[in-house]
């Protein structure tokens, strides 16, 4: 509206952000920016019973200089109309958060149940304004009078006029009500989005909320697009009959002094144990720990470091924080839970002495000051990883120790990703499930310009369908919108005062958990300390490995005591023989290992850090490799950077280094550098990165650096923004890399069992872990009702070193394994642990028949059938079919016969059945059934059965690739194990195929991918033709043609391949001429061509194919 008047100032006090889930259609930052652009006097954020969006708005408003009002739209469950609430000062804010907490805690997750009585109890100091919707005028006068009589603050009657059916009269009526109640009218536009163009998005969100299509939602959608932020003149026009309501917004604004900056954070007191102060206690524990760590005397250098660190901690008064972490780790250790700290402060000498980390400061040469600096006053950051299966114990310990009033988990804002957005938006547009799947499948190729028409066609969609374009456009807009709050994986906030006076607390989905409404970025923005209690699957695996080592080999090891720096371990890693090893098992890492050739611990630190977006986007990887291989001289851009870049051959690899460069080379103050880092972390949301970029590059150039280097440094920082990876993290991870590599190198049997027992974990499926272990000489034995436990176990076996695959011949002296691995029943799908434990408990001397198992174990018929499907009855001489036949024959209904009393000869006689005489199961079918039941087969690789056919097609075994020259063209075929498209590799897809001889690494360039999109994404058995590329023992096949060979798998489970082959010929069916039939009732029928009823045999083949396909791995996708 372009009505120009001498417009009076206006503040929009009621704007919903997209944290009013599926209602608000703009980010908090967008609203703040638009409010500033419109010249509003102030902006009030009022989300529905939530304060989840206020921190972001607060930060954005601070940056831009807008007065922000923290508020909330209270929705009631007792019929009271919505009431807007703005706390005037800190105390009132605390009452508001407690009010919301009360509402949250009594409601299921995601809901807040409030009554007017709650508000009456907690509303002091809060400016309140009922905002009646249409038809909510009755009783309003009483409500206003009550609010007026209860609190000191004058309530207001908020009015929103949205070009509705009867605005003028409504305003007049409400004005009358307000006048009678003696309260002022307050204008608002009840904002749902920042600009009118967001209306479609808001409609879509409403539909998602209502589980409706756009057509079906009808009048539940807004009638027009008026609920955007409006400027003072537009509001003056709308409220021309009540200008005083506009003026009131400004007087309310002026009366509100609360800002989130008023939340002074206080860390709780820690128990000081034997000492007087936390600092003294910390020092006592540290020196005690140091003696334990260095029984031969503390090295002077370490001692000096400890003194320096303690002084710093004292200066900043962080002692309680360290004590908290120490106490948590102590608790875990007492319970036998493996823990490992990481994060900026974790790899200090103090933390090593306190047992928070196992990384010896003497081993890494890491500087503590780099992580906490007195100038920045940034809180220290210590994350502690725990075994993923046992982290809950630690979490409950924290709740217990501090109480729910003082401790809460940070939230994680679950946002729409493009894929989930497409599904939801597509549903709103009424697209079929199938279309949704396909559309979601094309997301990889969406650009900012829109969806590629060609891609749509390839996916089998109609590019002319305007709905698809809309779906794509809106999905992109919704991507990044918060969808709901979830609990952070383990970020704890602990406060001295009541946590619920700082931020509302709500129930988490998990029983016994409570979560605050802010996420970790919000907490960091407000300078609040948090401790990350994280779960790490690898710690579980390592702990299980260490247990097995102790029990089966009598070897007692801990994370700290695993023999350090053994060359054999590094030899293995240099061969890229790292399947299953923590962090370095991905394709990219496997490619990097032979190039980087790690020979010591610090090399591993670099190995972990280098394959990350930061170094890759900064184009730092190749310079580093060249220097390491001695192909390039180590030089420093300027002398002043020598100290910063010394350890990494003059190339910045770690986040700390990049930040240091900003300070040392670009003249940033530490505070600025910190803001730069934060801006990066959220730059996509805020978008104010340009100024930093100019400042950094200009600053560096001005100090005599090359512009190119400066730009690369900046790009690297950008890369860290997406996934910050500091040296301290890398060091903690490197320790686990070494530990897991050592286990794999020395005890592949132990390693396999540990890994299987900690599944799901890592990049690879159990099938690949098993295969790798077998190639390392480990004998793996099948699941069995009489021999298997729930977990994989070790049994007596032969030394592995004697049975190595030729590929690993050089490890003969390294491998110490002498035992065989018995797969656990956990490998069998859909068996419950309790069932299996019961079975084991009642096994006694062993079961001798299916019936015996049934009668003694009490397992359900279904569970027994699953055991049979897993082929677990071999020890009693039954194969899969025979066992299944027996299991199927158990009479579930006849409960009494299960009592041993009735299991007498007589009953046995009665139930004796004729011999089943089942057709024998062909080997291919067995393998497929193994895959179906266990996801792996010890009998054979599925591709073995196709080898003859593949040979006829001149398809080479995967292993053959490593024996041919660079540049030779070959075709291979195999099951698709992994597809990976790293964001940093400009669209290249890495695939891993597997056949019975080994794996083949496929590289698919974007152009080829676009041609074969559906095949790349859909095939389970893939044929790839291309050029072999071999570099330092790393062999790739650069694909030029791909073919989906999944259909071949259909032959596997058939009873005879020949029969299936014949049946396939039936697929040619007789065409039916088009015809018109008189009885046709509808127009479409005129064109209807009736199919000859589908041939049964073909259907049979299809079914078989479908089943086989479903049994085979789908291939895991990684980004």
């Amino acid at each position: 509206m372009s009505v120009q008047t001498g417009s009076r100032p206006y503040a929009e006090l009621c704007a919903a952000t997209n944290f009013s889930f599926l209602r608000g259609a703009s980010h908090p930052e967008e609203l703040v920016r638009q409010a500033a652009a419109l010249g509003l006097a102030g902006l009030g954020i009022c989300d529905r019973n939530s304060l989840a969006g206020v921190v972001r708005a607060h930060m954005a408003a601070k940056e831009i200089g807008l007065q922000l009002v923290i508020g909330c739209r209270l929705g009631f469950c007792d019929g009271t109309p919505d009431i807007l609430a703005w706390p005037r000062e800190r105390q009132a804010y605390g009452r508001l958060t407690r009010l919301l907490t009360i509402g949250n805690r009594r409601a299921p997750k995601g809901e807040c149940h409030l009554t007017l009585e709650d508000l009456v109890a907690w509303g002091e100091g809060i400016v309140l304004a009922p905002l009646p919707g249409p038809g909510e005028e009755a009783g309003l006068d009483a409500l206003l009078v009550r609010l007026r009589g209860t609190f000191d603050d004058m309530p207001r009657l908020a009015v929103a006029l949205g070009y509705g059916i009867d605005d003028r009269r409504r305003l007049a009526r409400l004005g009358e009500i307000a006048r009678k109640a003696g309260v002022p009218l307050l204008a608002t536009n009840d904002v749902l989005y920042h600009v009118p163009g967001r209306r479609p998005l808001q409609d879509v969100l409403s539909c998602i909320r209502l589980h409706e299509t756009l057509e079906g939602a009808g009048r539940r959608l807004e009638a027009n697009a008026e609920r955007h932020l409006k400027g003072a003149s537009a509001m003056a026009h709308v409220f021309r009959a009540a200008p005083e309501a506009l003026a009131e917004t400004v007087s309310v604004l002026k009366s509100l002094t609360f800002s989130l900056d008023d939340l002074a954070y206080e860390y709780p007191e820690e128990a000081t144990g034997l000492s007087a102060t936390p600092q003294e206690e910390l020092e006592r524990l540290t020196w005690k720990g140091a003696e334990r760590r260095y029984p031969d005397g503390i090295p002077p250098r370490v001692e000096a470091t400890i003194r320096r660190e303690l002084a710093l901690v004292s200066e900043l008064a962080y002692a309680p924080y360290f004590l908290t972490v120490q106490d948590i780790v102590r608790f875990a250790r007492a319970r036998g839970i493996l823990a490992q700290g990481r994060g900026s402060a974790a790899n200090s000498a103090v933390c090593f002495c306190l047992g928070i980390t196992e990384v010896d400061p003497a081993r890494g040469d890491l500087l503590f000051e780099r992580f906490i600096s007195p100038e920045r006053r940034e809180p220290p950051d210590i994350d502690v990883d725990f075994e993923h299966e046992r982290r809950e114990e630690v979490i409950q310990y924290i709740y217990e120790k501090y109480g729910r009033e003082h401790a809460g988990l940070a939230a994680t804002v679950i946002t729409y990703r493009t894929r989930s957005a497409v599904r939801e938006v597509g549903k709103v547009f009424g697209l079929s499930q199938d279309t949704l799947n396909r559309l979601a499948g094309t997301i990889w190729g969406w650009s900012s310009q829109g969806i590629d028409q060609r891609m749509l066609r390839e996916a089998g969609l109609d590019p002319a369908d305007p709905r698809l374009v809309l779906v794509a456009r809106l999905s992109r807009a919704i991507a990044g919108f918060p969808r709901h709050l979830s609990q952070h994986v383990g970020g704890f906030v602990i406060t001295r005062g009541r946590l619920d006076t700082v931020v509302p607390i709500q129930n988490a989905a998990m029983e016994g958990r409570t979560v605050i409404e802010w996420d970790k970025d919000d907490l960091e923005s407000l300078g609040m300390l948090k401790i990350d209690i994280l779960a790490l699957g690898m710690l579980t695996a390592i702990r299980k490995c260490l247990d097995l080592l102790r029990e089966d080999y009598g070897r007692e090891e801990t994370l700290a005591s695993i023999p350090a720096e053994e060359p054999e371990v590094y030899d293995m890693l240099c061969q890229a023989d790292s399947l299953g090893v923590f962090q370095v098992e991905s394709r990219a890492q496997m490619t990097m290992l032979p190039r980087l050739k790690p020979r010591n611990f610090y090399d591993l630190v670099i190995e972990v850090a280098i394959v990350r977006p930061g170094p890759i986007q900064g184009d730092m990887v190749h310079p580093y490799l060249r220097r390491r291989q001695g192909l390039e001289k180590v030089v420093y851009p300027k002398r002043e950077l020598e100290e910063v870049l010394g350890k990494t051959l003059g190339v910045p690899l770690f986040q700390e280094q990049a930040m240091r460069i900003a300070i040392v080379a670009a003249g940033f103050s530490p505070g600025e550098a910190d803001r730069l880092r934060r801006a990066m972390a959220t730059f996509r949301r805020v978008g104010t990165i340009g100024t930093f970029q100019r400042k950094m590059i200009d600053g560096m150039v001005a100090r005599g650096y090359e512009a190119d280097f400066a730009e690369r440094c900046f790009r690297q920082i950008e890369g860290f923004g997406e996934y910050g990876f500091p040296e301290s993290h890398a060091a903690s991870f490197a320790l686990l890399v070494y530990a897991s590599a050592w286990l794999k190198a020395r005890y592949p049997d132990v390693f396999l069992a540990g890994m299987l027992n900690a599944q799901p974990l890592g990049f690879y499926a159990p099938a690949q872990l098993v295969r790798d272990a077998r190639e390392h000489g480990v004998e793996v034995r099948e699941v069995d009702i009489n021999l298997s436990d729930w977990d994989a176990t070790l049994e007596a076996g032969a030394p592995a070193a004697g049975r190595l695959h030729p590929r690993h011949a050089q490890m003969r002296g390294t491998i110490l394994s002498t035992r065989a691995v018995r797969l656990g029943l956990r490998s069998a799908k859909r068996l419950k642990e309790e069932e299996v434990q019961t079975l084991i408990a009642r096994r006694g001397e062993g079961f001798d028949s299916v019936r015996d198992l049934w009668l003694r174990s009490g397992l359900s018929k279904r569970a027994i059938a699953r055991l049979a499907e897993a082929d677990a009855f071999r020890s009693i001489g039954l194969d899969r079919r025979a066992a299944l036949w027996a299991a199927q024959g158990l009479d579930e209904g006849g409960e009494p016969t299960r009592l041993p009393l009735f299991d007498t000869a007589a009953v046995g006689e009665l139930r004796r059945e004729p011999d089943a005489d089942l057709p024998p199961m062909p080997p291919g079918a067995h393998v497929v059934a193994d895959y179906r039941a266990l996801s792996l087969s010890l009998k054979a690789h599925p591709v073995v059965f196709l080898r003859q056919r593949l040979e006829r097609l001149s398809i080479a075994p995967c292993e053959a690739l490593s024996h041919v020259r660079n540049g030779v063209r070959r075709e291979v075929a195999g099951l698709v194990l992994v597809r990976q498209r790293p964001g940093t590799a400009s669209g290249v897809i890495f695939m891993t195929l597997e056949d019975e001889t080994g794996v083949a690494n496929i590289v698919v360039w974007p152009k080829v991918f676009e041609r074969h999109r559906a095949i790349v994404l859909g095939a389970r058995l893939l044929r790839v033709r291309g050029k072999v590329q071999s570099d330092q023992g790393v062999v790739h096949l650069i694909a030029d043609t791909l073919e989906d060979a999944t259909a071949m798998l259909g032959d596997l489970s058939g009873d005879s391949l020949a029969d299936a082959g014949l049946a396939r010929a039936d697929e040619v069916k007789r065409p039916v001429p088009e015809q018109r039939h008189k009885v046709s009732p509808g127009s479409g029928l005129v064109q209807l061509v009736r199919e000859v009823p589908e041939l049964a045999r073909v259907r049979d083949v299809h079914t078989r194919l479908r089943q086989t396909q479903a049994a085979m791995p789908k291939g895991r996708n990684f980004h």
Partner: protein
Amino acid sequence: MVAVPRPDPDRTLLAELRSRVAALEGGLSSEGRLMPDPASAANGQGPARLLTGVAGFDGLFASSGMPCGTLHEATSAESRSGGALTGFVAALLACLAARRAGAVLWVMEPEAGREAGCPNAEGLARFGLDPARVLLVRTRRVEETLWAMEEGVQASGICAVVAELRGAPRALDLTASRRLLLRTEAGGATAFLLRHGGESAPSAAVTRFRIAARPSGGRDGLRLAPLGRPGWQVALQRNRDGRPGTVELEWDHAMRSFAAPADREPVVPRTGDGPAGASGTGRVMAFSRR
């Protein structure tokens, strides 16, 4: 408001019970439920006369109140006054339907629809006539319209029949209207012939109303007044049941009843509203139809 014989208490009770049960079973519309008229339900015929409560109107008829169960005629000068004409009839229908069970049969020809549009359910609902009770019959010829009307007035499930015609069609001659009158009076429903732009034509109907709108507001320069209540200038040109005369009526939406016009303060204050209000610019521009 309805002239009724003194109700027999027992029958009244029974009728009310029935009505309630019917309401529970969803048989009657909500409007019918709101104001059950015990007496009419009891004798099954509905009130003999409809009292509007406006003396000037009710007094025009012989024994006070418009007779029901017979044939009336309502016309407007031109079809652009179709809103007022429809409103007047809708108001009468709403009064009738609130007091009697049964559906309203609304018969119209395409010609009438083209001129004055289709009845709008939401609008009828605001008058208190539940659209769910309206059966809309679209005929092709006048003969069909008359036939449908005759069928309607004789059916027991119908409380009123409206037929819309344009002008004075030849098929609706004195004979035809007499026949219609006889059938109507033999049946139980009240029938209205609603003629858009109808010049006076011979008719056997008991009444002929000529309806024109009654202005409710005025403007003061560029300042526009808000709308008042709907109102009519009713000219009862012929009345076989009393005397002719003219009267002004208004409709009260909240009470769902007729009212005598009164000068009332509008709810919306005149100051500061209207397009020429606070915005001040008030530029005026011509828009073409193109």
